[in-house]
């Protein structure tokens, strides 16, 4: 077999390595390169779709492999959570929201907290595991020329899947007398919110993961950061309750600056549509817009920092 001439354009390059036939230098990348890479992100993602999907599936399978319930576990977890919140807050502590008293129902507070916790547990896990994702997979980066940007994305997507399962549990619970189904037209917002949530958490996880490569303290700091942030987000407290409303009034500006408060406001509006869940005095759509800007900005910042640090990953992990 005689070797024919190589046509670089015809050669199908292994996607992880540099494109065939192009010079590779050590020159650092400039703003124009970064802009081009950000714009090319969807294409990059499409090229690596097999890799991303395989990693997400592997992560999920690995988590439940060898267990009796298998893929029922992500469903069991939120259902259990829901039951516990209902029992503790509604039955044990007899906490009720004003509208429950009016309507003679008692589950609103449990639903309120369940949604907050379900969303936050995925988000917090994305930040914590995402921050360590590049360092923890150092072997892949050093030995396989693995596209490192995929690693935090896999964590974000795995948590998105888990969250969707929790939402499924919520819908199942809604068919019981405990709660009622939200209206279908509002449910159309679910994919939009989910996308924005993944984008935001991915951007932030990329930023943390990149910093963590160079300074391992980042993962530790992220742990504290996520906990503090959780308490500053209205997950366990109800901002519009009488008493609380007055006390947080001076800090409303701060809460306005918390993107997760906006996201949660939107989620609760969508899934508890019938109830007044006012955190902010404006329309939930405004919060969706605010969070969308946050998500986009966080992604651009996170991905830019990642691109700047990427060339040195293999040397540092």
């Amino acid at each position, binding site marked *: 077999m005689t070797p024919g001439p*190589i046509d670089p354009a015809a050669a199908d390059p292994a996607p992880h390595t540099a494109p065939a*036939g192009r010079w*590779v230098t*050590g020159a650092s990348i400039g703003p124009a390169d970064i802009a081009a890479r950000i714009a090319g992100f969807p294409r990059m993602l499409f090229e690596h779709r097999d890799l991303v999907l395989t990693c997400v599936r592997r992560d999920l399978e690995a988590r439940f492999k060898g267990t009796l319930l298998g893929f029922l576990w992500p469903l069991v977890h939120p259902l259990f959570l829901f039951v516990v919140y209902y029992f503790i807050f509604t039955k044990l502590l007899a906490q009720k929201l004003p509208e429950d008293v009016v309507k003679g129902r008692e589950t609103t507070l449990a639903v309120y907290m369940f949604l907050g916790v379900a969303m936050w547990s995925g988000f917090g896990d994305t930040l914590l595991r995402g921050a360590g994702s590049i360092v923890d997979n150092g072997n892949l980066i050093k*030995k396989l020329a693995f596209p490192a940007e995929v690693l935090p994305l896999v964590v974000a997507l795995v948590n998105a899947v888990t969250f969707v399962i929790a939402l499924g549990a919520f819908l199942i619970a809604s068919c019981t007398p405990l709660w009622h189904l939200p209206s279908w037209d509002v449910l159309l917002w679910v994919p939009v919110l989910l996308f924005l949530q993944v984008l935001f958490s991915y951007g932030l996880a990329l930023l943390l993961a990149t910093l963590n490569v160079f300074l391992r303290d980042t993962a530790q700091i992220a742990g504290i950061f996520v906990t503090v942030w959780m308490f500053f987000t209205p997950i366990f407290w109800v901002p519009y309750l009488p008493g609380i409303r007055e006390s947080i009034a001076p800090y409303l500006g701060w809460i306005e600056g918390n993107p997760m408060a906006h996201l949660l406001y939107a989620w609760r509006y969508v899934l508890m549509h019938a109830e007044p869940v006012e955190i902010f005095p404006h329309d939930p759509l405004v919060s969706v817009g605010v969070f969308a800007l946050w998500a986009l900005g966080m992604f651009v910042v996170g991905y830019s920092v990642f691109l700047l640090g990427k060339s040195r990953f293999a040397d540092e992990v």
Partner: protein
Amino acid sequence: MSLPAIEVEGLGKAYRIYPSPGRRVLEWATLGAHKGHHEFWALRGVSFQLGRGASLGLCGANGAGKSTLLKVLAGTTRPTEGRYRINGRVASLLELGAGFHADFSGRANIFMNGIMMGFTRREMQAKLDEIIAFAELGTYIDEPVRTYSSGMGLRLGFSIAVAVDPDVLIIDEVFAVGDMYFQKKCIDRIYDFKQRGKTILFCSHSLYDIRQLCDEALWLNGGQAAAQGSSVHVTGEYTSFQRTHIDEAKRNISAQFGGELKAASRSEALPRIVDARVYRNGEECYEIKTGDSIEIRVWWENPRPEQTPIQIGVGFMRQDMTTCGGIGTHLDGIDLCGRSGCAILRMPDVHLLSGQFLVPVILFDREGVHKYQEFLLPENLVVRAQTREVGLFRLDHAWELRADVPAPAARADAGKKA
């Protein structure tokens, strides 16, 4: 005109060494004004071109920059200076089984590993049977990888890695894994790559492997090219460097400690081959014709012949690892007496046909089991045939043409067996 497969120009790689994380933070805080790190150049000023279908072997001591060069070319880390270009599809094999997940079956890991190496699900589906057949793991392929022995894991990793069909293959001393049988299979596979005109770049501590598989070689020393060129030349340079290096070290030690150490060092007392060369008509010669008469002279030393009786063996191996012949003093019932000497192996009328032959000279113990030393000749033996016979050897033969020899009657059982 086709482009060379690999072009490397003035390639260098520096690692930043920070004495502590605090120094890095300080450097960040001052935006680089306060330099908190020093640079370590693992590789510097390396240039070469490798044509399509050629193979390059990297040799050198540990820490000489071999792996760094392969990592840069494999794309896992970027060069600090210089540039390189690879024309064609690259597959790199820096570590076998990197990214295996212990809880998943071998079959599932084939998919995941291949996809992690940059291949699509469809490509892996197409290659699945081939990979499973090559690995020969039997029913273990559906068991979790954690139940595998380390050798089985390596088998699977190698099978995945060689199933891909790249134009350029970069290997970091990971072929030749598993048991003897599988090692042979690995070498055959690599050799097959070469035969099909693929470009191979690998590093190895085995100079035999480099000579056998590579046309060219690059010897790295302290991150820089100490010698490059034909693999025979470079491995020869490297061997003689190592020899003088060891001699120098020895001299330094004895200079420092005077006579005290003379008898102490145990390796001093072991037998060794001083030199070995090939002669034709009394002149050193490595390019011969079929039918030439040659002599192989082996100079040896044996400080303690009573404790360590020795034997000398000479092998002839073609480049594809076929052993064409092996001769030994223990096989011929010769005794090597005394503390030193020169064993002359006379071979009248060498029957070898065209080819390049590696001639390892081996110093055995009396039974021919333990190898004290394997010695490389300064060059490979190149044989050129003057006739058009095929095969490894010219067989002694004669033809006779006659008309008066009748064909024997057909055998009675000839038809039954078919």
